[in-house]
């Protein structure tokens, strides 16, 4: 197929391959009008075709090299695929996401502060209860000891027994307080856990036990 050099009004722009350049035919000028040397034109056509062919070969070689490098980077875990990296992000979307994140954090911070206050209170109460119980147990123990020292005779046996009963009760009470506090603080922790938990579908995805 040949291309007329004067075919410049053709609607479809055709790719100028070396082969096309070589095979272009120029219409001859009418006799008597000045024109260029047809041999020189042909020579130039061939030079041009050669240059373009060389350029194309070079292009292909470089493209292959780029592909090879991209494969190498891919296989070494580096992302060089430009399509995966949208160059610009929508600033409004960024700000919206930022605002949502801050909102969520405000809720979390509030829950944590509440939790800190409650556990602090609970701890102080627990310590007060325990030390109070301890003190009472100590006093009771001292009373028992005093009773035993002061009156070893039988009239006071009932009193001593009563004291011992109270001591045993106080020991049990101390233990019960401790058990109760453990249970209460565990139950409390579970409530706090609920506060801190993310929506179900989010946490499900997050479980990453390998």
């Amino acid at each position: 197929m040949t291309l007329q050099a004067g075919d410049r009004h053709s609607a479809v722009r055709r790719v100028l391959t070396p082969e096309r350049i070589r095979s272009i035919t120029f219409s001859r000028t009418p006799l008597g009008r000045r024109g260029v040397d047809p041999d020189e034109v042909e020579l130039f056509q061939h030079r041009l075709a050669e240059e373009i062919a060389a350029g194309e070969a070079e292009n292909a070689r470089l493209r292959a090299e780029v592909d090879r490098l991209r494969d190498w980077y891919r296989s070494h875990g580096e992302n060089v695929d430009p399509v995966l990296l949208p160059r610009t992000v929508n600033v409004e979307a960024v700000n919206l996401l930022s605002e949502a994140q801050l909102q969520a954090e405000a809720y979390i911070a509030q829950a944590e502060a509440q939790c800190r206050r409650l556990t602090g209170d609970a701890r102080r109460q627990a310590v007060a209860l325990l030390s109070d119980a301890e003190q009472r147990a100590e006093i009771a123990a001292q009373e028992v000891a005093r009773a035993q020292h002061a009156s070893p005779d039988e009239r006071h046996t009932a009193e001593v027994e009563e004291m011992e009963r109270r001591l045993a009760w106080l020991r049990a009470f101390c233990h019960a307080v401790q058990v109760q506090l453990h249970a209460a603080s565990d139950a409390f922790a579970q409530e706090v856990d609920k506060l801190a938990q993310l929506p179900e579908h989010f946490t499900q995805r997050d479980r990453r036990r390998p």
Partner: protein
Amino acid sequence: MPLFFYSTLFLTHPQLREMFPAGMSAQRDKLVRALGTVVSNVDDLDSAVPFLQQLGRDHRKFAVTAEHYPAVGQALLATLEHFLHDDWTPDLAADWGAAYKLVADVMTAAAGEDEQSSPPWWNAEVLRHERRTLDIAVLTLRTDQPLKWLPGQSIAVETELRPRVWRYYSPATPPRDDHLLELHVRMVDGGAVSSALVQAVTAGDVLRLGAPVGSRLTLDHGNDVVLVSGGTGFAPMKALLSQIAQEPVPRNAQLFLGARTARDFYDSPALQALDRALPSLRVTPVVSDDPRFPGVRGLAGEIAARYGPWPGREIYVCGSPAMVAGTQELFHAAGVDAERVHCEDFTGYQDPTEAGIGLLKRG
């Protein structure tokens, strides 16, 4: 600016969101500050290299891989572009891009090297969970793979109950052939990880452990030692004493064991065992908040400094940040050279990333 950075990162790469905890206020500054500091120090990158390598290794436990780095770099550049507006030129973009690439290369290379010798994290099954007091638990764990640490070092811990939130704890045992290790955890009011570890975790649960970090509380000399602990700050001291008990050359050790009340001495059997194993060990229990306590009353650091100045001895301090700071001051006031007082910059309370940034700023 960090907020914009993370939002950009998550919008362009939504799959990265779940690598971060729900609340990110604390997390937010870390990455960008580390990046910003490093990138602005890029003229003197040599001094930043060890920090970057450590950062790269540390990030393995967050399941960060080489593919994640370009996404972060891109979000960083987008953030800078947004804030610099007209000042953002192609030249500047190229400079920042190149600088970030250098940083990412150092980090990924260090992480890749680390891959040869250790896993990104260790899974550790809870074998025993003992609630020793109202707010202290002793956990016995077994790692799925051998994990080596030096007594006094700290290990980052994550529980599935608080995904993607890591806290540092110092094991109370030296490494063992049976892969067992012991953690002492005190519940911090409102503390996400500590409350889960004390109250919710039970035997059979699996925790994740990061690679050991820290060098301030390790034994790198042959001198006698004075150990001062508050609460669960006893954990690294117990590990150090176990190490001393195994050493061929005996050395003297004096332990000041601090607690609020006598009830808070949560590890008495271990103390008795150490006492038997180490004839040179002297233990002084010190109670701060219990007027009926028959023994020594006050702050452990106060008593230890008063018994000073401990010539020729190295002093190890571990406890709450307030206790550590107070004890450091007391020893300083007692004329003890600061170099002899060993303490982690808030061991178990601070991310080494932060410490690294501090280092860079000073450097």
